[in-house]
């Protein structure tokens, strides 16, 4: 049965068809060769009403178990103020395309310009692009960029402590341009970068060295300035990967010699969402020549043509794929703009004090948890002597970390990310993380469960 309205919609459709001189829409698809036409319905579920879709998703999500987790490793659970969520879901911002027409896109452009500037305050640089896909791809793009800055340096160095997933992404990006890499080992005692190994591997063929601070073991690289000296003595570039919230407490990488700073922006107002979307930030110091090699979009401040108003626009686009095609600095087009915009809201809202308070919470909660775990008979935490921020490596000296994890899940907890596959030499280890989302009660209940597990492991080592 068709009602009046649907009837008239059909009429409009017919009007359009007859305007085109066709009897049915099929005629518009007649240039598709018969041999490749799909002559059957798609094997997909039938359409669901909004109610049914909501019920269906609700049922699926009820299969997720609610847990309290102490996972980090490149994604951390942080509080997202309501204003951040509200701003980044405003339809005028959320449902816009890339601001190719700046005169009608000043809101997005100004917000991204502010984002770029706010990140600069953290990193100590004066240029940040409008976002990369995430931290791992930002590292990869930084390495590619450094390679382009030299004629014949074809090698890069990365820390052996780097998370294996980040390394895997980097490997994929290095494959095409045939850039080789070597890993710099870490000091087995401190967990920091092994400076001797770095010195040995540095030479005139190295385009860039990537350092993480805090590194993937959570350890703060106390000798970052020395690393910088060693790298620069050989004329190479230093890329530093950071946790942006930690920069409320830790030195700005520009101040110890970083040439490019990258990192995971997720903590700045983006939900965990099972791994994405996140965004990578990419910062450097302005230099007329070097900037030409930067990947990604960047917003600049300019004037209107009549000279009357300040205005914002995507600029330096002659680096990009839509202009330069195969000579572009990167193929990146869509990035993570709205999340970067949200990070701007987050940083403006928290301010320096709020960010510092958040960072201190992360830092102190981690130290509390580590020291309590270390009191257990069969656990060591942290296993490295180097000072750490909010992630640290825990070792179980009896049984396996996998068994510990299983027990924890039964009690509604998830512990750390196990390192057995990437660092078997460290024994049965996992990396734990705390943030301001962990209340004292969370930590206390977690410790109670760990104590029980420890006890069940029994006496002896």
């Amino acid at each position, binding site marked *: 049965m068709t009602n009046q309205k649907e009837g008239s919609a059909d009429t409009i459709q017919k009007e359009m068809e007859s305007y*085109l001189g066709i009897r049915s829409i099929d005629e518009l*698809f007649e*240039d*598709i060769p018969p*041999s*490749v036409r799909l002559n059957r*319905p*798609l094997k*997909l579920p039938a359409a669901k009403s909004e109610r049914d*879709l909501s019920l269906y*998703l609700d049922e699926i*999500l*009820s299969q*997720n178990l609610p847990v309290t987790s102490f*996972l980090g490793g*490149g*994604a951390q659970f942080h509080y997202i103020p309501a204003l951040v969520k509200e701003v980044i*879901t*405003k339809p*005028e911002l959320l*449902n*816009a*395309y*890339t601001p*190719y027409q700046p*005169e*009608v896109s*000043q*809101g*997005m452009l*100004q917000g991204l310009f502010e984002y770029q500037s706010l990140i*600069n305050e953290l990193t100590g640089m004066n240029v940040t692009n409008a976002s990369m896909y*995430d931290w791992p791809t930002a590292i990869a793009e930084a390495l590619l960029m450094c390679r382009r800055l030299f004629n014949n340096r074809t090698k890069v160095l990365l820390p052996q402590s780097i998370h294996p*997933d980040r390394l895997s992404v980097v490997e994929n990006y290095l494959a*095409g341009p045939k850039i080789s890499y070597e890993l710099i080992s870490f000091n087995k005692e401190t967990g920091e970068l092994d400076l001797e190994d770095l010195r040995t591997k540095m030479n005139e063929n190295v385009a860039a060295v990537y350092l993480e601070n805090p590194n993937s073991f959570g350890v703060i690289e106390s000798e970052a300035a020395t690393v910088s000296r060693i790298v620069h003595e050989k004329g190479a570039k230093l890329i530093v990967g950071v946790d942006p919230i930690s920069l409320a*407490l830790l*030195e*700005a990488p520009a101040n*110890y010699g970083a040439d490019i700073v990258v990192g*995971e922006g997720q903590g700045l107002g983006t939900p965990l*969402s099972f*791994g*994405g*979307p996140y965004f990578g930030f990419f910062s450097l110091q*302005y230099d007329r020549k070097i900037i030409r090699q930067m990947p990604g979009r960047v917003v*600049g401040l300019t004037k209107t*043509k009549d000279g009357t*108003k300040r205005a914002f626009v995507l600029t330096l686009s002659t680096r990009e*794929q839509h202009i330069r*095609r195969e000579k*572009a600095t*990167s*193929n990146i087009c869509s990035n993570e703009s*709205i999340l970067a*915009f949200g990070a701007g809201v987050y940083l403006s809202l928290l301010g320096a004090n709020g960010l510092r308070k958040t960072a201190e919470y992360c830092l102190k*909660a981690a*130290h509390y948890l580590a*020291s309590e775990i270390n009191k257990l008979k069969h656990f060591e935490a942290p296993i490295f002597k180097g*000072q750490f921020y909010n992630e640290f490596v825990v070792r179980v000296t009896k049984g396996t970390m996998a068994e510990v994890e299983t027990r924890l899940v039964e009690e509604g907890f998830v512990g750390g990310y196990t390192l057995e596959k990437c660092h078997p030499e460290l024994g049965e280890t996992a990396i734990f993380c705390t943030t301001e989302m962990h209340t*004292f009660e969370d930590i206390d209940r977690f410790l109670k469960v760990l104590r029980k597990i420890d006890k069940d492991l029994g006496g002896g080592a």
Partner: protein
Amino acid sequence: MNKKEIIQAHYQEPLVFELEPTNYPKYYAPEIPPEIMKNVPATDKLIPKEMLRKEPPKLPSVAEFQLARHYLRLAQMNYSVDTNFYPLGSCTMKYNPKINDFLSMDRRLSDVHPFQPARTVQGNIRILYETEQMLNELAGMKRTTLQPSAGAHGELTGILVIRAYHYDHGEGEQRTEIIIPDSAHGTNPATAAMAGYRTVIIKSRENGLVDLEALKAVVSEKTAALMLTNPNTLGLFEQEICEIAEIVHDAGGLLYYDGANFNAIMGRCRPGDMGFDAIHFNLHKTFATPHGGGGPGAGPVGVVEKLVPYLPKPLPEFDKKTGTYYLNFDVPKSIGKIKGFWGNFNVIVRAYAYMLSQGAEGLKRVSEQAVLNANYLKKKILECNAWTLPYAPETPRKHEFVLEGQKLKEETGISTLDVAKRLLDLGFHAPTIYFPLIVHEALMIEPTETETKQTLDKFAEAMKQIAKECHEQPELLVNAPQNTAVPRIDEVLAAKEPILSWQMYQERQTEK
């Protein structure tokens, strides 16, 4: 006609750094629990001396109420598809249903860590699994990785998978070239170069399609792949796709499908049936996920059976015996990872919800209406007699069409850029301009399926008005836009004397 019709708010909105500093109390960061404060040393004892920050970052000190106004005003100076028509060619700016956003904000999705054990995230892995199944069916592919972050990232993934395939078959060093038509999206050659390939560009024929002879002349034992979008960027379906596939396959190369134009063909034909070996989807285009002013997107990559072993890992699987979902990391020939974690999950969920609400029939209808709208609007605008339709004017377009503004420019001196800016004045977003490169003064228009005939008519009316103005009041175009948040922007100045941040702005001020 000259009257000023304000279509956007005009604020002289200060930068967030220029807002008045206030000391309004804030409650965003929680207090550190006293039990922890008591037992843990002071902050400066926990951080190596050399690494302690000497100066706090100079972030704004402003209250939420100031920021709420600031961002509301910024939003009011931003055009979106919720504002009006957004005919940006190749970008598929369709309406994004609100239910998808709402569902994606469920805390059971948003507060889940990617490294949680599979048994705690059965629902999430199931969503990945079912999304993949639906995409496989839509494209006629065997498996699809959901990992890539965007279309271009999908391209890179697909080409790296193809590269791995050639290496695994002992032809990696030999196959050094990727063939790309001159009408291709800029990301195609940029991707090929990034993956280490030499790009071989082939010219389009006078009918806008791939020139088989030109293709035959360049394929060789060096060919790794041909990258193609079908329908192509002119909105024309590559009718000789089977012959194209044969030529490339006979030379040992593979076919890559750029899925930017997938909105044209859902339920009508499938890249897998056309002979393509790999395809990326743009979930933020075809599957109605918000583009966020530049991202996030998601660019899943589907492949035929022989490429499955090389896909990024992990892949979502369902174990029938135990009735559980899991992420399979045991993919020995996999290229590994192309980004952190498993994909832009929050985007994937929205696309999943979109596919479920449309269903098989609905998705087919989507493409039909998109193609009907494009052809309707094309004919309407051609009636202005101002723009021409280069390449096979009699052949129906698919989801988009490209107009040439050369004649208008020669007659009136008005460029496509001016036309685009004037459209903004009349309350419309401009089409994609100066692309594809094989059309002079190009206007690339993609109306999508979520527009009414009335909107299309109004847009055609606006184009008609502009065509008239070109002759009678060219100053209206040259000085456009006037009704927007700001008048035309000096982009040359922006690139010549770059001010890329508040910091550089301040440096510039002190220099002066």
